[in-house]
């Protein structure tokens, strides 16, 4: 899966409460969640994000609540991949389970700035920063986690196994 898009850049410890605040958890409609995604730290995101744009965060991205509404909202906003130094554990699982690739690149993430354009191969984990010429490699996904990703998420994976 090859992707190319403009970067929405966020910092360390982006928590699930800012990704999708609890006041919107009375719905789990992805399209509705997407309209409020990130609004407490970035009111321009939901308005201006374009399908194919890429989200980039720092350390411990997605910390906090287990709400799968958070990766669902980001995915429904049109983001096909998130890149971060590393991800909080439950958010990471949730991303894999809903078929949203999450790539961890450690401190290399500091070389990616807002509005850079990235080309990402989610299956190999190769990330090219077309704005700077840098190339990064994400830590590869472990074996059967790759199978889940390939199946498009855990539900499909379980159905295939049945």
């Amino acid at each position: 899966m090859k992707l190319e898009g403009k970067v929405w850049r966020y910092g360390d410890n982006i928590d699930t409460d800012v990704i999708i605040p609890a006041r919107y958890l009375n719905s789990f409609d992805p399209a509705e969640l997407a309209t409020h995604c990130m609004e407490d730290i970035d009111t321009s995101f939901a308005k201006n994000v374009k399908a194919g744009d890429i989200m980039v965060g720092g350390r411990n991205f997605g910390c906090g609540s287990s709400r799968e509404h958070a990766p669902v909202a980001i995915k429904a906003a049109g983001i096909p991949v998130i890149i971060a130094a590393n991800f909080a554990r439950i958010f990471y699982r949730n991303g894999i389970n809903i078929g949203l690739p999450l790539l961890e690149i450690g401190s290399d993430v500091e070389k990616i700035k807002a509005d850079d354009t990235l080309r990402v191969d989610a299956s190999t984990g190769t990330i090219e920063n077309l704005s700077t010429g840098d190339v990064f490699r994400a830590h590869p996904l472990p074996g059967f986690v790759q199978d889940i990703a390939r199946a498009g998420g855990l539900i499909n994976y379980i159905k295939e196994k049945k």
Partner: protein
Amino acid sequence: MGMNMTEKILAKHAGLESVRPGQLITCKLDMVLANDVTAPPSIKEFEKIGRPVFDRTKIALVPDHFTPNKDIKTAELTKTVRDFARKYDIVHYFEIGRVGIEHVILLEKGIVAPGMLTIGADSHTCTYGAVNGFSTGVGTTDLAVALATGEAWFKVPETIKVQLTGKKPGNINGKDVILTLIGMIGVDGALYKALEFAGEGVAELSMTDRFTISNMAIEAGGKNGIFPFDEKTKAYVEGRVTKAYEAVEPDVDAAYCRTVEINLSELRPVVAFPHLPGNTKRVEDIGEIRIDQVVIGSCTNGRIEDLEIAASIIKGHKIHPQVRCIVIPGSQQVYLEAMKEGLLEIFITAGAAVSTPTCGPCLGGYMGILGAGERCVSTTNRNFRGRMGHVDSEVYLAGPHVAAASAVLGKIATPEEVG
């Protein structure tokens, strides 16, 4: 090489002799939990799988976040949970009037036990480590699959040993311990890792202290936070847990990736400043910070001992005229005991509001939402930006002792300052 407590529980449930950090395993689950926010999307995903529930006695559905329903949408969410519970005749389903906060009632009713493996679609599922179980939070898709299969995959975590030493001073409780620890290792200090508590200091901690500590393992990024089984654990689970259970203890040669020591005798009442639970400071060092609201409750500090501590400080005083103080017992049982012990009378005569059990303000749901610029001292577990309301409001996390003292004095204060 021996195994630590987390590894032992994971190995047993994976049907393996032993496991090592980094290993990917599939485990059988003893209990699967969801609430009114996470169950409805899980149920939707579950239906796509096209199988019945794996075991109606091993599922707990606790509509606690917006209970009693705050609006039509949440009424619809709870109805989804209720209909599902009836359809599959789920044993551990809790209706309004019997419901409490999930992580309070699952322990209180003995639904979770030592040595058990529990997953819950709620990040604070890690609370059950306090009774020597392995429990961790997952999202809705993991939960959906667990409802159908009774299994989940795990990566065996590395474990950080938290060595507790020294005597615990009387004015210190579990919240001071865990906020101090998160302040030391950071909000990602235990990312992908297990926390295991050890040392002679464990015996100093009440079960309520341990619930608070295990509850907030996730605030250090931890997968779980497990305590050894001792006389106090035994006394707590006796009469609650009816099933046979098998407690675990670490092998003497168990491996840990790191050891952190906390000397309980050196602890002072602390508070975590906005907007991270790791912004821990000693209350005596912070100067005067005026506040608008106090919340005492939640899965972190909504148990009877928490309310006893708060009431002992508030007794004979009034809530400060500029402060709204909201007290929320964590379960109907806690509510009833607080009534019998006269705690509710202390709160109400002091000018506090007492609510039916609910998560309510903890996640900014309802029942105490903050406006712009308002400050709240809360016994809950998260102080992220906008967590309890407006993005420009502030949440300061503390134990019931500091929260109660702050409610009386109108500023963040230690119990000693109340006098």
